């Protein structure tokens, strides 16, 4: 699709107009507090931070909320269960390429038959404006995964070229939003050359990388199941689950019921769960199929590097580095483990 250019001032006006006109239920974007970045609701364009390294939680929360009601029911003789999907129309601004790739994986998982309508409804009601990541966080290796930039997963994609953004239009919906709210011109050859240049420069800023092409990871994992690397790395694991809670491609959940105080109705909800927690694979008779830290650690590395890829044809890790930043004992980053396995194999 076509490429446009918009000045930073005009983009800010576009965001303000989106907020003021109220066509969408909310305008969400990257904000900052205490030097950390996070996705939250925007009340004016001044709050939006487009030059950031990584957000604490990924934008996955807009599609797969941390806790969501999936059915409601009445207590007693006639339970009358009803499906529930809460969704509002959103413009989501400032998503990095790796998070867009991660959303594509989430969508592949949840749209595989039988499809989960909740994620699909939210996806359809969200206009996504991406932004290229020019200053990656110190744990990011998304360039090695091939996700420093992306050609898909967005309605509009911004690249900061100084006093303006090049806007790559990904969908008709994006083109329409830009036409109605923004004052964009056609990008010139100079604009595009500058975009390529800043993208190229960003590649030199990744501190972490894979020591092999990403597509070799499954083969390396196949050969190293019994490698001591898993035991050695996981020895200090706290089984805290933080690496999973911050991950944009982690999609597992637990399901629980609650009953209202009045005892006449209740709801069933699902909430994020973590395969790094001790009881994730424990069955009622007491058998735990991944009882020790090593087997859970190995499982996570295989799921990220192999299982999801083989099942959905999309990598289970996009290299965002969040797990590496979150892990108190510095063992969670898949690239570190894959590199060690490569060395050992």
């Amino acid at each position, binding site marked *: 699709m076509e490429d446009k250019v918009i000045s930073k001032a005009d983009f800010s006006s576009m965001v303000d107009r989106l907020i003021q006109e109220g066509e969408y*239920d909310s305008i969400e974007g990257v904000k900052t507090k205490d030097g950390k970045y996070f996705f939250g609701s925007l009340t004016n364009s001044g709050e939006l931070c487009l030059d950031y390294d990584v957000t604490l939680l990924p934008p996955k929360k807009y599609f797969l909320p941390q806790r969501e009601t*999936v*059915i409601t*029911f*009445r*207590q007693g*003789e*006639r*339970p009358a*269960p*009803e*499906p*529930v*999907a*809460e*969704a*509002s129309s959103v413009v989501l601004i400032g998503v990095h390429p790796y998070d867009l790739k991660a959303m594509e994986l989430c969508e592949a*998982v*949840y749209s*595989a038959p*039988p*499809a*989960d*309508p*909740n994620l699909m*409804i939210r996806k359809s009601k969200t206009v996504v404006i991406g932004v290229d990541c020019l200053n990656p966080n110190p744990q990011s290796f998304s360039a090695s995964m091939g996700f420093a930039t992306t050609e898909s997963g967005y309605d509009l994609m911004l690249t900061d070229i100084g006093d303006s953004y090049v806007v790559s239009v990904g969908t008709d919906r994006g083109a329409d939003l830009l036409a109605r709210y923004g004052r964009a011109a056609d990008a010139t050859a100079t604009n595009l050359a500058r975009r390529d240049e800043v993208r190229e420069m960003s590649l030199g800023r990744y501190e972490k990388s894979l020591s092999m092409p990403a597509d070799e990871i499954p083969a390396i994992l196949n050969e190293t*199941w019994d490698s001591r690397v898993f035991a050695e790395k996981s020895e200090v694991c706290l089984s805290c689950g933080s690496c999973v809670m911050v991950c944009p491609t982690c*999609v*597992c*959940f*637990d*399901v*629980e*019921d*609650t*009953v209202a105080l009045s005892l006449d109705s*209740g709801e*069933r909800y*699902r909430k994020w*769960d973590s*395969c790094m927690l001790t009881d*994730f*694979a*424990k*069955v*009622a*008779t007491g*058998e735990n*199929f*991944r009882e020790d830290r090593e*087997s859970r650690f190995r*499982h996570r590395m*295989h*799921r990220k590097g*192999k*299982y999801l890829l*083989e*099942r959905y044809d999309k990598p289970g890790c996009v290299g965002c580095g969040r797990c590496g930043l979150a892990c108190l004992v510095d063992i969670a980053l898949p690239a570190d483990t894959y590199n060690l396995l490569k060395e050992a194999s």
Partner: protein
Amino acid sequence: MEMHLTPQASIHLPRLAELVRAEDITRVERVYEFKLADGAELGHRPGQFVEVSLFGIGEAPISISSSPTKRGTFEIAVRAVGNVTNALQKLEVGSTVGIRGPFGNGFPVEEFKNKDLLIVAGGIGLFPVRSLINFVRDNRAHVNRLIIVFGCRRPEERLFCDELATWSQCEQTEFLETVDTCDESWTGNVGVVTSLFPKIDIDAEDTYAVVVGPPVMYRFVVNECLKKGIPEDQIVLSLERRMKCGVGKCGHCQMDGSYVCQDGPVYTYSVLKQMKEAI
């Protein structure tokens, strides 16, 4: 403004079913017969399972224990071990539960056609294979020999005693049984389930073995089957894993790259052998 949508086909939405009969099997196990509220057949294959919902308490994956040849209603047999399964025990006839499924692949019944079938069940492993046994008994021409081997720990833990008696008396069914330990009142075989294997004479190439029981049983029984010469892809096992969704989303049941809820719970030994987390 949050929209409260009613999605067309939530993966979490159960159908309603009425409990039409419940009977104790032992002190901790009970059989339940359900009828779907919309009058439909469950439409399962032997070896599949359902997610049983008690609203306000939760869901549990439970094998369908009745044969698909039983029309109008279906049965599950449940050991009370936790929240859902204990609450189920207190449920009165006429109560409504939720049912999702049937889920999973089930036993490869088509492949058993004109073969000999050796079914080995340990303890409550009998619950899922009972569906297969009664299916085959109702379609007796489907397989040649039907050999059933059942083992449990003590005589008091024997399950579906009436049906065990029927199978042992039926001329077209070969039935062997053992208990691990007992007092003098037990006159049958004593020993673990593999102790019966020397008594079984089979044409291994033409035999499918179906093995369901506690995890510890698998290694020993598979070994015996292999020793008898049953080909690896004719040894069929059903596995238990933690399950929350039943539809390949929640990740709990994952074993290597496989989702037991969708790709299983039934696997051949030749497939399981390739997996690191299987048995």
